[in-house]
């Protein structure tokens, strides 16, 4: 008993140390970035490409440039990936339109900052940018619950098709100036005049995004080993058996799906501030795929894995930027290789 207690205590200490380590690393990161290296590789890449494609790569120096905005971007994608991890990883609801809910958050933030008059004579709904964030979250959750209520009785591939369709509908609606508010194909530009002063430097947004990313991870970490978390996993594994164990399957699904919207709306609000714009092309289908890849790459249901997977994904894209137009080719090959050699993801539970 005492030996077991000792092991539990040591394990708890280890976990606390890991969290502390991550916090310290994230706090230190801005003083390290931007990070830039450059190698002269001459025509090292050329012969291969010349033979394969019959022209020169034109790449003579290989550069890696990683700035603070990449760290912010990675943090925002960690938040999104956690939201999707809740749907796909925990409850097994394959969602291919996740970015639509990020877009809802982003557009609510952008509309609020630009369309609601700033001068003090007019009625301003919210006084501060941070007060808009709950509204962004509420909007994303509301739409997600409404969509979930109609389509969560579908399973697997069918749910994937509905969510994919919804994602595209959202993007097209935003592009076509929905309610006359979304600015059509130009999107909504957040000029320095309307951008909150707080974000005139890049650091505050980084710290905010990093803190919220950590909080997202912590939330999922707490939920994973809880009554609700196990119920979600049970629904994912076998709906009939889950119902027989007293779990209200539909309700569990609505909760998992709807709560994904909290993360989407939050990430969306910050994403608009990060991009200083809300633009329909930022919410393409490919963005949804990116988040799905992060979750699958990291290992569905694993928290450290998905967080790590998201960061690796963003970093990999930047590291490969030096390869110019071969970037996506190499990137695709990397993903294929990963899925062949580690189908359960970087940190997924091995098994069936």
């Amino acid at each position, binding site marked *: 008993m005492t030996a077991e207690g000792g092991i539990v205590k040591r394990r708890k200490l280890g976990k606390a140390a890991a969290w502390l380590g991550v916090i310290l690393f994230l706090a230190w990161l801005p003083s390290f970035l931007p990070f830039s290296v450059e190698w002269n590789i001459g025509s090292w890449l050329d012969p291969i490409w010349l033979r394969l494609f019959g022209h020169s790569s034109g790449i003579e120096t290989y550069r890696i440039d990683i700035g603070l905005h990449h760290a912010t971007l990675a943090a925002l994608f960690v938040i999104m990936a956690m939201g999707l991890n809740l749907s796909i990883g925990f409850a097994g609801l394959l969602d291919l339109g996740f970015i639509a809910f990020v877009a809802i958050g982003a557009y609510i933030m952008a509309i609020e900052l630009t369309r609601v008059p700033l001068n003090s004579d007019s009625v301003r709904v919210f006084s501060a940018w941070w007060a808009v964030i709950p509204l962004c979250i509420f909007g994303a959750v509301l739409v997600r619950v409404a969509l979930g209520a109609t389509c969560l009785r579908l399973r697997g591939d069918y749910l994937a098709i509905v969510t994919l369709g919804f994602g595209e509908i959202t993007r097209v609606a935003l592009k076509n100036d929905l309610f006359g508010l979304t600015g059509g194909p130009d999107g909504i530009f957040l000029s320095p005049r309307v951008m909150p002063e707080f974000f005139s430097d890049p650091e505050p947004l980084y710290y905010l995004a990093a803190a919220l990313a950590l909080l997202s991870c912590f*939330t999922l970490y*707490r*939920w994973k*080993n*809880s*009554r*609700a*978390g*196990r*119920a979600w*996993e*049970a629904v*994912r*594994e*076998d709906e*009939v*058996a*889950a*119902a*027989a*164990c*007293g*779990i*209200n*399957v539909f309700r569990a699904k609505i*909760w998992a799906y709807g*709560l994904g919207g909290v993360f989407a709306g939050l990430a969306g609000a910050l994403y608009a501030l990060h991009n200083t714009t809300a633009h329909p092309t930022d919410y393409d289908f490919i963005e949804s795929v990116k988040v799905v890849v992060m979750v699958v790459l990291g290992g569905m249901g694993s928290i450290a894995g998905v967080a790590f997977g998201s960061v690796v994904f963003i970093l990999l894209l930047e590291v490969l930027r030096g390869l110019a137009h071969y970037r996506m080719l190499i990137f695709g090959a990397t993903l294929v290789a990963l899925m062949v050699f580690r189908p359960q993801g970087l940190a997924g*539970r091995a*098994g*069936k």
Partner: protein
Amino acid sequence: MTEAREVVLSVQNLTRRFGGLVAVAEVSFDVLAGEIVALIGPNGAGKTTLFNVVTGVYQPSEGDVFYLDESLADLQPHEICRRGIARTFQNIRLFNGMTVLENVMIGRHTRTGAGLHDALFGLRRHRHEEKDGRERARHLLEFVGLTGQEATIASDLPYGHQRRLEIARALASEPKLLLLDEPAAGLTPAEKTELKELIEAIRGHGITVLLIEHDMKFVMGISDRVVVLDYGRKIAEGIPEEIRRNPAVIEAYLGTGAETGVA
């Protein structure tokens, strides 16, 4: 059987159709508190369909099922579990990717109530339920003979152990009535003996058991009463000795004796 015992489950005139097929036809029987009742019948007799109606997977087409005088006809499976009916499945349905301990803890879902905020902030309710749930799950695993397997992934367990784990998961919901769908299927003779002891121990804890089984020796050795279905209809009901000698049951299982001159 002299004193009047409480009727735990009362199946009344139950019919379930699938299109033109009548899977269960006007079946009525009662299960009394503390009994072990076996539901037998040839393949396709409607036994599992009857289980599925009782547990809310299907709605009855006609008739009704009462659990402690409450109709189950309009209840969802999870609501029925909450009221105290737990079940296992013919082709084992465990949560395969999860550990043995997690599987049993899911069984406690209806007996716990910690919300998402309890878990997020690590409130007392969550901590207490987790600790208590783990302890109870360990006890149940010990009860079914799976001590030391807590951290094993459910699908990695050998077949016989998976059956036991399913029973432990069902017991975790603290049921009054346990439905076992072919618990002895695919077990070795030694495992069947252990299962028989386990089911008797379960009854010893005051849990009523209704089970479907094909193995006649097993059924006759364990049940207080036997209900026989054939083509969806109840053809006999009684204590094992009566059933063994019942001509209708013999006919259903072995065919008519008239042609062979056995009867």
